[in-house]
Structures are given as structure tokens and as C-alpha cells.
């Protein structure tokens, strides 16, 4: 039982990281109707920016964190305007290829600028544990979860209570009608990409300390879990992405502890098997609804 609770908490910590990246994928999917394969690499690049501010410019973690989130927001919006927008009419496959090109490009740039060797991003949180009875609760997992939940609540409040948030939702649901009502839809799309980039920056800056060391490929495992979470939750459902991300983190930790077959190497295939099963039996995801195609 003790071990069970510990694994659940640790799983929630991992799951929080998957959830934030999955949420970023959902934001872009709702805005652009495309899966952004470069989402993880955008978070990776942001993490290197934070690392540079801390290591080379002597900043402490939180100012670097806020700065990086802001820069990533601008970067995401800029990518939408310069890379994605000109290809918007060219069809799904072309845009998917463009995000794959971004993936390769960002990964190459990061190993070029910062060298491919492993770096350390110190955790801003205490790495010890709290003892509740026999249960050792890892503090970092709890703080990771809190940071992600705070981001989610902030985003939700923005979308729910501000006029800009309403305009963003409107242009995702019905771009034509929104344009007629005076919403600048292309800028709304750029904002959507900005928020997604900011979220993946958060995911990267939490994942790097949690993995102790990071290198330019450190987000490639995280992004696969995030894909799984986004699809399992229903690719258009933000709430689904968060819930599925957390659930996936917990499930993988529990399977890793109690099922002998699920060695660390086998975790990813098992997660993908879950993804495949969900896609086959509930193609719309758990919280999504099946897409209706107009003929």
C-alpha cells in the first residue's frame, strides 16, 4: 500500500509534464487542425534558453522561468506567422511535413548551439521527500503537479473570462463567422501557437530537472507520452488532455512497479499499445466525441 501511494504521487508528477505538453498539442490542434510534431522540440529549445540564462548570465531559476515562457510565447507566435501561415492552404500533409521539418531543424540547431552533451538544470524545488506515516512522498512530483495545475487554471480563466479568450475560442470553432464579426483570425491562430509554445516551455523546464540531465533529444520520449495523452483524451478536448496525461503518468508508474514485463525499456511500447487500443475502440478519444464528416 505504501509503495502504491508513492507510485501514484510520482506518477502524477510525471503525468503533469505529459499533461502540459498534451495540452499544448490540443491548443494547436484546435487552432490549426494539425498535430504539431515539433511541440516537444520547441519545449526542448526553450529549456536550453532557460539553461543559458541561468548558467551563462547568472539568473536564478524563477526569473529565467518567466523570461523563457515569455520568449517561447513570442517564438511560437512567430513560427505560426512565418512557417505555418504561408502553408495553411497547402493541405494537411504539407503542414505536417512542415512541423516535421521544424522538429529536425530545432533539434539540429540545439545540438549545434549548445553541443549534444548532457547538461544539468538544477531543480528549483527541494528534492527530498515528505514522510506521511510510512509513505515517502517525493516533493518534486508534488511541486511539478502544482505548477502545471496553476498554468492550466490560468489558461482556463483566460479562455473563459476574457474577451480575447472568447475570440480565440470563436476562431477555433468557426473561423469564417469570427472573421465576419471582426476577429483577426490569423492573429488568434498565432496567439494559440504562442500559448502552446509557452506550455511546452513549462513542460521542458519541469522535465529537465526531473530527468536529472538533459540533452537535445530529451523531449522525444516525453512528446510520445504527450501524443498518447492528447489522443486518449480526445484531441480536441483540453480537459481530456490533462486528465489523460495524469492518468497515463500514474498508469505507467504502476505498471512499471507491479508488472514484471514492463521494464523501463518496455514502458514506451506499452504506452503506445494503450494508445492504439483506445484509437481502435474509441476513435474519438475518451472525452472527445467521434468526428462527423461532412460529405
Amino acid at each position, binding site marked *: 500500500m505504501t509503495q502504491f501511494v508513492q507510485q501514484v504521487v510520482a506518477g502524477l508528477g510525471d503525468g503533469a509534464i505529459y499533461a502540459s505538453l498534451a495540452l499544448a498539442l490540443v491548443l494547436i*490542434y484546435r487552432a490549426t487542425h*494539425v*498535430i504539431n*510534431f515539433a511541440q516537444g522540440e520547441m519545449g526542448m529549445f526553450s529549456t536550453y534558453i532557460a539553461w543559458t540564462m541561468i548558467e551563462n548570465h547568472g539568473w536564478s531559476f524563477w526569473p529565467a522561468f518567466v523570461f523563457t515562457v515569455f520568449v517561447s510565447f513570442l517564438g511560437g507566435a512567430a513560427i505560426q506567422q512565418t*512557417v505555418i501561415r*504561408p*502553408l495553411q492552404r*497547402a493541405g*494537411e*500533409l*504539407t503542414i*505536417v*511535413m*512542415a512541423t*516535421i*521539418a*521544424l*522538429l*529536425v*531543424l*530545432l*533539434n*539540429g*540547431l*540545439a*545540438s*549545434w*548551439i549548445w*553541443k*549534444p552533451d548532457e547538461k544539468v538544470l538544477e531543480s528549483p524545488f527541494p528534492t527530498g521527500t515528505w514522510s506521511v506515516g510510512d509513505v515517502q512522498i517525493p516533493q518534486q512530483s508534488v511541486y511539478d503537479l502544482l505548477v502545471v495545475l496553476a498554468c492550466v487554471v490560468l489558461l482556463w480563466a483566460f479562455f473563459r473570462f476574457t474577451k480575447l479568450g472568447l475570440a480565440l475560442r470563436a476562431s477555433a470553432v468557426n473561423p469564417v463567422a469570427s472573421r465576419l464579426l471582426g476577429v483577426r483570425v490569423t492573429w488568434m491562430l498565432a496567439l494559440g501557437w504562442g500559448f502552446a509554445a509557452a506550455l511546452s516551455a513549462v513542460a521542458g523546464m519541469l522535465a529537465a530537472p526531473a530527468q536529472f540531465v538533459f540533452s*537535445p533529444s530529451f523531449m*522525444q520520449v516525453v512528446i*510520445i507520452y504527450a*501524443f498518447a495523452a492528447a*489522443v486518449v483524451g480526445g*484531441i480536441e478536448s483540453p480537459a481530456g488532455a490533462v486528465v489523460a496525461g495524469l492518468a497515463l503518468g500514474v498508469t505507467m508508474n504502476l505498471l512499471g512497479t507491479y508488472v514484471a514485463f514492463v*521494464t523501463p*525499456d*518496455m514502458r*514506451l*511500447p506499452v504506452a*503506445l*499499445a494503450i*494508445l*492504439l487500443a483506445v*484509437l*481502435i475502440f474509441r*476513435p474519438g478519444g475518451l472525452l472527445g466525441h467521434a468526428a462527423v464528416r461532412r*460529405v
Partner: protein
Amino acid sequence: MITRPALTAAGGIVAAAGVIALLPLVFGDTSEFRFAFVGAYFIAALGLQILTGYAGQISLGHSGFMLLGAYVTTILSVDHGWNDLATIPLAGLVAGIAGFLFGFPALRLRGVYLALATFAIPIALIALAKKYEGLTGGGGGKPLTRVLTGHEAYVTTWPIAGGMFVLAWLLLRGRLGRAFRAIRESEIAAVSMGINLALTKTLAFGISAFYAGVAGSLYVITIGFANPDTFTIALSILLLVGVVVGGLGTLVGVIVGALFIEYVPLYAPDILSWVQKPIDLNLDPQAAGAGATVYGAVLLLVLYVAPTGAAGLLRALVRTVTRRLYTSRGTEPPGHVVSRRREA
């Protein structure tokens, strides 16, 4: 009736085959070795072209099918004493059956979902290959029975590549090719014309994976060593890049894509130093990541400037030249408007 474009294409293909047959005369061992890899990439990219360019289904899983083919060859030739060349058809067949079976769940998925699901193939297969070390040699890899010289690898790979090219051409020019293109353009229209969507899509996956399996087999025969980490998602992405650079929906363009996959990383430092010469960025073009950076940038550039790829550029060039040759000034040839329409 044999049309002029068909003649032009046939002429081009015969010329290309001639060049490939004569290249060993001028090549050294290293170049022949590199070209053997180009041949393997060519076959794998042909398979992906059939699936993506013709049937319109995206796949990031083809490195996984290559892995299957590679290990069929490795295990049969090392542990069971088969002649490694004799394992090639079987390698293709095993991968093809796996692809056909994967096509079933893929049937329910479209576009983005399919791409995400195909992600699973190489990741799962690499993990399994590392887990069952007794069979595969695990993460440390497994050497094959013989080591080929560059020339041997070249003369092994290219005849097979040529055969696979002709096979693809024969497959695609007939009923099946039309069915593939129909489901690419509109699944609903295709079904209403009587095309069996499920069968056609799974067949596309199966045939495509067969090609990848043969390519994987030739790859390990050439390199003489099987290692699961050769066949990561990165290789799948490279293949997709090759197909797009060559031009979606064209078999001839695939050769450009295959050359691109093998040679761009090699010449990336040169490209970089040439690009930064006028702006004096003072970056080290030999550093790690330089190759990937060039790759990504070139891919983006292709998507913007030449969305029809190398084949599209070539076609436009041929068309311009032939129009100059065959048209007198001031008159447009009949069918001009149709021929200028952008190809999807």
C-alpha cells in the same frame, strides 16, 4: 498509343539505368559503398512513396518495417546458415505481412491519428529487439556472416533496386494504382465507385512494408551488422523527407530523395560554410547538429519553393523546353490550359 510524355519518361529511365550501370567504372570503393546505401534508401522510399504519394496515407513507421527485414536476414543467415541473399524475399515478405496486419487497425484512423499510430511501430520493435537479446544480439548489435566490399554491395543492391522500381511501376500503372490514387483524392468518392477501401488501404500498407523489409535486409547486408538503434523514428522521418524532396506521387523523383538522404548530411558542412560566407556568421560547420539543421532548412525550403519536389521541377523544366521546341511563337498548343494546371 505511346504518348510523347511516356517516351520522355522511358528515355529518362533507360538513361538513369545506364548511368547506374556505368557508375562503378568511375567510382572508388567508398563511393560504391555509399551508393549501395542510396540503393537501400531508394527501395524503402519507393515503398513509402506508394503509401504516401499514391495512396495518401502518411507513415512514420517505415524504419520499423526495415528493422523487421534486417533481423529476418540477420537471424536466418547467422543462426540458420542461410545464404544472406536468399533471405531477401523472405525479409520483404515478413515485413509485408506485418504491414498488412498493421493496416487493419490503421483502417479506422485517418490523417493525424494514423501518423501518430505508426509512430508506435519502430519504438515498439526497437524495444522488443533489445529485450530479446538471445535472438537479436540486443542493443550491442549482431554481426553478419560476411563483410562486403563497396563493389559487392553496389552490385547486390542496385539490380534489386531496379527490379523493385519496375515492379512498383507495373503495380501502379494499372487498376491498383488507380484505386490508390482514388482513395488519396477522396475516400468517399472511391467507395462509391466500387473500390474496397479496407482491402486497398491494407494492401497499400502491405506492399509498402514489403519494400521497407527488402530495404532493411539490403541495408544490413551492406553494413554487415544489425543494430536496433539504426532503425529509429529518425530514419522514418528521413525517408519521408526523401519522398517529399523527390516529389510526392512520382516514382522517378524517389532517386533524388534517396541521394538527398545519403549525401546531404555528408555535404552539410560545405553547404553551411558556403551559405555563411557572405554573412560571416563564424559558426563551426563541422559541429554536431549542423547536418540536421541543413536538413530541416532544406525540407522547409522545398515545401515553400517546390511543393512538387524534384520531379515537379524536372517536369516543369521539360515542359518549358518542349514547349519552346514544339510551339511556334504566338500560338499555344491545344490542351495548354489543362497541362498547366497545378498537380495535386
